[in-house]
């Protein structure tokens, strides 16, 4: 059977659609986080976009924690806590990833507009 322009168009179209479907529904990285939620103590969460590189200072119980946003990721850059566990958590770049500086009562979680996972067990 001879391949016609219609067949070629159909194959290309199907390939594009399958690629879109994979990226949207099946790829583990399908839903990169769009923003971070920063919360200090019991105050309402502050929403920070991850597409804008920034340094954010939040004041907790012990003092100032500095959060750094770079290239869609976020991390604790400095914190007044003793053990610096929050800083050692490093960069976070997955939706629903979360870390906290509990001594300073600062928590950080990542959210996506369309998250692939509803939570992270850790």
């Amino acid at each position, binding site marked *: 059977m001879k391949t*016609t322009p*219609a*067949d070629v*168009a*159909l194959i290309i*179209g*199907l390939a594009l*659609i399958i690629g*879109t*479907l994979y990226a*949207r529904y099946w790829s*583990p*990285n399908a839903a990169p986080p769009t923003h971070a*939620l920063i*919360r200090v*103590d*019991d105050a309402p*969460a502050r929403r920070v976009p991850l597409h804008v590189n920034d340094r954010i200072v939040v004041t907790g119980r012990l003092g100032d924690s500095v959060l750094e946003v770079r290239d869609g990721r976020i991390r604790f850059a400095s914190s007044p*806590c*003793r*053990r610096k*566990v929050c800083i050692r958590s490093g*960069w*976070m*770049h*997955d939706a*629903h*990833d*979360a870390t*906290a500086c*509990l*001594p300073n*009562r600062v*928590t950080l*979680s990542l959210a996506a507009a*369309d998250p*692939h*996972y*509803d*939570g*992270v*067990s*850790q």
Partner: protein
Amino acid sequence: MKRWIGGALILLMIGVLVLRGREADDRFERQIYSMGTLVTLTLRAPDRSPEALAALVSEVESELNRYQQRWSVRGSGALAQLNATLEESTTVPVPATLLPLLRKAKTVAEDSAGTFDPGLGRLVQVWGFDDAEHFRDAPPDRAVLTVAKRLPHRLTETTLQDGRLQAEKPGLMLDFGAIAKGAAVGAALDVLKQAGIEHAMVNAGGDLQVIGHAEGRPWRIAVRHPRPPADAPRLLVGIELQDGEAVFTSGDYERYFEFEGRRYHHLLDPRSGEPATGAQSSTVIHDDPALADALATALFVGGVEQFDALVDQFALEFAMLVDAEGRVHATAGFMDRADWLADVEFAPDADAQ
């Protein structure tokens, strides 16, 4: 011409499916501080007003705070008072609010070959892992540690009868940190279920339980990679959860300090009084969140040597251990459900355990 039309129709049908996207997100999400961590409540109840759901979240918060007060080693709660009595005495009446979980913890302790025991409260205190604000920089003085190890530190060496706990000698200090959070997560979900909520997730700092399902699909969770490669995703494996399932993970990356090149973490081995050395993380999926919590700790402490025995003892269908070398050991049930998100080295026969 017919083939053009046929092709166009197929593309159109698939295009409609793609562009339709997922159903509208009807989630109500709130975060609260309790049990020493951040608790995220995700509710799906589109027929309730935001005000009604916020009131429900307040009820959950009150319940969690009651748990925190009750099970805190410090302060004036029921457990703190029980510990104060045990400091001077060998026999203590157990308040009714503590009895069910204490009984469950004792059973797990007795069946877990020494890998789980809430009796090590004093050792946790000596190691400084009981207070996130005052972590140590170095291991405790060996003499102090030796004295603490000589004091009673095993719930398995007590008798629980007629609502009274009897220790062999004074000085036992109970710490339910490895099981109470699980019970609290279950209690929080009970509040939601009693209010008629059918679809929800309670996530207490990464330890979670679900009821119902997410939008048109099961709840999906990922388990954190204990040693994620630099600049790679921090996720190890994805799992879809069924109604009522809880997922608890214990890892050496949460509360720890490093001294002279060695990591000292908060998961103490009750048999040695030292941080366990056989694993990087362990994960248990179970319908009982308190058991999932306790058994994740037991698997971590037991390491590779006791993984199979503990899985058999507690008839665990869904369990995983990342050993000290980073190799994954998992039950066949876990392997069947796992969607691996990172390069993983499996232990031999990982899917046959």
